[in-house]
């Protein structure tokens, strides 16, 4: 038996600081979250069924009523929008997962360990990327089944998926911050609904930009979700050549505009969330 007073080797080693530690500790926490998916696969079933439902609902219910004009069919126009909406909604999982973690005893264990204060957040946001990867795969397959096609090269398509995941990752830090502030998991679902519904619906995700006018149109043009959708359509080759290119700068530079938003969101919400984590965990 080892005596508890035996000086443990690892403790005497200097631990790497800052970002390296946040990433290595974050990965340990991410693995813990992924094990949960393995143990409670039921959660995954619903995560994967809802995107299928979305694709089919929009394709068949609105498909006949909404006409983006030109040669590209609505279904083809639609899929990138559904991709964008679903991965952005995926951020809700981050908020809910953290809100749940904060109520559990395991947080006390984490807080009493010499680990990075960002690790729980890095771990949660990282493991939630897996949800989004899986739902993108499922949605892409469903999309292909109802007539969506990738018309640019494979590299562009991969970039398209990459951009969707990157933006979703940034938004998950926003919901992480919200998740740390709400008193219970139930609140998160409502909170994210209020934020994400308008964000995704006041965009070109489901209807063409041209159908908006006045102030609302400006809003749609500058909405980062519109840029994300536009960029995805470009990278997947779902842009109708017969429709004139949009005039607004964010729409003309959709990839760049999306990346700028990713940088801004991360720069604001990573420090904000880490600070909130320290505060929330010390409250009890």
């Amino acid at each position: 038996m080892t005596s508890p007073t035996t000086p443990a080797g690892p403790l005497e080693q200097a631990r790497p600081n800052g970002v390296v530690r946040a990433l290595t500790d974050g990965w340990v926490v991410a693995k813990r979250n992924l094990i949960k998916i393995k143990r409670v696969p039921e959660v995954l079933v619903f995560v994967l069924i809802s995107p299928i439902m979305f694709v089919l609902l929009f394709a068949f219910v609105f498909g006949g009523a909404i006409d983006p004009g030109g040669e590209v069919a609505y279904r083809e126009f639609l899929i990138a929008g559904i991709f964008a909406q679903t991965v952005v909604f995926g951020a809700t999982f981050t908020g809910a997962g953290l809100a749940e973690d904060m109520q559990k005893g395991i947080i006390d264990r984490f807080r009493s360990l010499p680990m990075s204060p960002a690790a729980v957040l890095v771990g949660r946001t990282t493991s939630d990327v897996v949800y989004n990867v899986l739902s993108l795969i499922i949605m892409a397959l469903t999309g292909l089944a109802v007539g969506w096609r990738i018309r640019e090269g494979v590299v562009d398509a991969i970039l398209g998926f990459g951009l969707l995941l990157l933006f979703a990752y940034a938004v998950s830090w926003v919901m992480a911050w919200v998740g740390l502030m709400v008193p219970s998991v139930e609140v998160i679902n409502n909170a994210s609904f209020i934020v994400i519904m308008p964000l995704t619906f006041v965009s070109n995700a489901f209807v063409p930009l041209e159908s908006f006018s006045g102030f609302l149109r400006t809003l749609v043009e500058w909405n980062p979700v519109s840029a994300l959708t536009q960029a995805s359509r470009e990278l997947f080759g779902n842009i109708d050549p017969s429709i004139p290119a949009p005039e607004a700068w964010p729409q003309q530079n959709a990839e760049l505009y999306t990346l700028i938003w990713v940088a801004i969101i991360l720069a604001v919400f990573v420090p904000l969330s880490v600070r909130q984590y320290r505060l929330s965990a010390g409250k009890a």
Partner: protein
Amino acid sequence: MTDMIRATGLVKRYKDVEALAGLDLDVPEGKVLALLGPNGAGKTTAVRVLTTLLKPDAGSAVVAGVDVLADPDGVRSRIGLSGQYAAVDEHLTGFENLEMVGRLYGMSRTAARARARELLERFALSDAGDRPSKTYSGGMRRRLDLAGALVAAPPVLVLDEPTTGLDPRSRVQMWDVIRELVSSGATLLLTTQYLEEADRLADDILVIDHGRAIARGTADELKAQTGGERVEVVLAHPADRDRVQRLLAEVATGEIGLAENGRELTAAVDGGVGALRRLLEGVERERIEVLDVGLRRPTLDDVFLTLTGHATEDATGASTPADAPTPEVTR
């Protein structure tokens, strides 16, 4: 001998309640100190401050030679904390829980795995080690949690109410485990609501109330202050009260307590069994009908009553039954 834990003048306020009101405490190396007090006395707050989970409003603390406020990470790598609510992940197996903790201490994967197996073995969890901890009993979860606190073999251990909520058998098992730790030389700070637990595990007991220390000593010293064992009588007829009170006065060493229902009388006595026999002889001689007569060791309530002059009651003044072993007190 150096102090492994030393706290001076800790203050922590929550709105209008002072959870800690200038608490001082010290634990010499290799010793066990029990913080004894009712719910809301400030035990858990003290533990949270000493383990860096909470910043005090005033005061200072040094744990294993490291200042809690100046270098919390340094403290965290030298302590092991096991809390009131088992801090384990229910979806992870026992092995995965311990491996994760080891990795978060900065151990290599190989070292963390070896340590996890070793601890599972030591806490009699080997057989259950590869099952999700959700399937564990309460006692097993607590043992796993305690194992988590020991992963990095820290020189200082802090156990917050390690047996609260456990059934009697698990409690005794837990005591055995803790005694074994102590015998191997760890410095231990332990909080408890049970005088018996403090008695069995600690070298020294610090009684706290309303966030400050009110007495310190060994279990024997504290019990001597509270007047040793108690005789308790439950009357069948409240009308017999005066007669029994007179009989009790012959054997009592202090005041005679009367419960609110007017049927239960309690008194500290010297030489327990002899006093009980004399009382019983009197009761029989006078043909008084009693429901229950017994001898019991002083409870936390008795210690409190003697030390503070008030029962373990909350700020609103609601008194608790004299025989309640774990009075509910709100902070």
